[in-house]
């Protein structure tokens, strides 16, 4: 079941598109589910399909095509580290290594307490701030150093 909050958000998105093009809101709907639950389960895709009046397979196609959807449970805070060229040149390898040391996890993994997950990202379109990661696809943290990463993690630990 989609929560009332998600339905309210989807309804707001639907206003952007012609009335007969409800499918246009599918990307946003998947995003809202992920924001609420941390990941998107097949049952959520089925609910979205019913709500938007589209085949369940078409929702599945979208959820699996776009990289930023989590198709398995991730951490409460999922850090997506860009490893593309500008970031690689500026030390994204060191970023990953430091996160590995601090959190004990590698790409695609989640800490035992479920608090942190790390994913590999493709170009975030913010290359002048390399190296960087995003937190839950919402906040970009750039020009990372080991000290800055420690600060960010300390802040998240408090929450």
């Amino acid at each position: 079941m989609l929560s009332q909050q998600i339905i309210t958000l989807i309804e707001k998105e639907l206003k952007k598109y012609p009335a007969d093009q409800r499918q246009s809101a599918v990307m946003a709907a998947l995003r809202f589910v992920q924001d609420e639950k941390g990941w998107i389960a097949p049952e959520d895709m089925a609910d979205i399909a019913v709500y938007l009046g589209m085949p369940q397979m078409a929702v599945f196609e979208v959820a699996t095509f776009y990289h930023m959807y989590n198709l398995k449970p991730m951490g409460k805070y999922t850090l997506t580290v860009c490893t593309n060229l500008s970031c690689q040149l500026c030390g994204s390898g060191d970023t990953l290594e430091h996160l590995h040391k601090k959190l004990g996890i590698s790409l695609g993994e989640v800490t035992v307490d479920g608090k942190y997950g790390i994913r590999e990202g493709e170009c975030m379109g913010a290359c002048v701030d390399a190296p960087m990661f995003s937190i839950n696809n919402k906040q970009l943290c750039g020009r990372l150093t080991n000290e800055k990463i420690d600060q960010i993690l300390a802040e998240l630990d408090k929450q």
Partner: protein
Amino acid sequence: MSAQIILATANDGLAKLDNYIKAGGYQALRKVLTEKISPEAIIAEVKASGLRGRGGAGFPTGLKWSFMPRNYDGVKYLVCNSDEGEPGTCKDRDILRYNPHLLIEGMAIAAYTMGVKTGYNYVHGEIFEAYEVMEAACEEARKAGYLGKNILGLDFEFDLHNHMGYGAYVCGEETALLESIEGKKGQPRYKPPFPASFGLYGKPTTINNTETFASIPCIIREGGQKFADLGVPNSGGIKLFSISGHVNNPGNFELPMGTPFKKLLELAGGVRKGHKLKAVIPGGSSMPVLPAEIMMDVNLDYDSLQKAGSYLGSGAVIVMDDTTCMVKALERLSYFYYEESCGQCTPCREGTGWLYRIIHRIEHGEGKPEDLDLLLDLCNNIAGRTVCALGDAAAWPVQGMLKHFRKEFEYHIEHKRCLV
């Protein structure tokens, strides 16, 4: 004209409507609407400006606008491509988050010119903060009568909505982007038909890059010729350059077309201390790499870079110093195209994986002498044989690297380690 036309920073505060208006914002739109300038005259002005698509393809904007059917009664759409995911490129992000009303004004003028009432701005999924600024700016513009019905109290209607991507490089290709707005996988369409006749929801549609739209208000205010004169012949106006990688002060810079690369490098604080420039990718990761000795004499405009063997692309300049292993750099780029191929065309789906696996094995000391010719053979069988340009984008970096740094690849194969 002021020195900075498009580029703003957080300190300018232009994301707030009041400040934008105080700085002369929405005057171009007001001029167009109150003086009832004809669409033909606007297109002529844009053509005179020499403005070419700033997303990377460099197609003349005025010409693109002229393709939209004039005497068509049905719905037409205007789409802004803010899906900025070409590695190295991050200029549109600064327009979205620091100067959103400039984009709205540019799109409103374009909408008036082409008789469009609805627009979409497709924002790269990774820059949520910029999406939120755009959402707030559109809302503010709507309330103040710059979007919606009866704009400026006149008989003109245009509304703009933001659509967020969610991690697919290929959606920067205009027809994949349209599919994505329709709520589908972002797989490019076969052209023709072109979007101007069959675009979003099957309706006539014009798609331009964020920076392209953001250049329009200045062109209308100051005149096309004045804008063109800022640049050089065949590369009119000013352009945003993102410079990243091994420089002291990476950032976005607004410069006249035709500015020497040397000058941009200087603005970016030069190469990291204690190191020498080795190579530069001058226009986003898809463009062929150029060695330092060529780059230091090149000007940043369409013709100069083409003559030098690369392209201006999106104006994203990736700087590599003498510590860079070209095999490792190319391995990462090839992985990117492999990962981002939409899987629709066999040469790209299979070929990008093949390219990546060969470069991966060279990087890991398992390359064979015949691999380099195999790579070039593969490139020739991918480029130009796919529905969209992603296949070409995957081939060009490989061809560029082997043209200028073949020796480094040979060394890697022979000695099973880096030259640097």
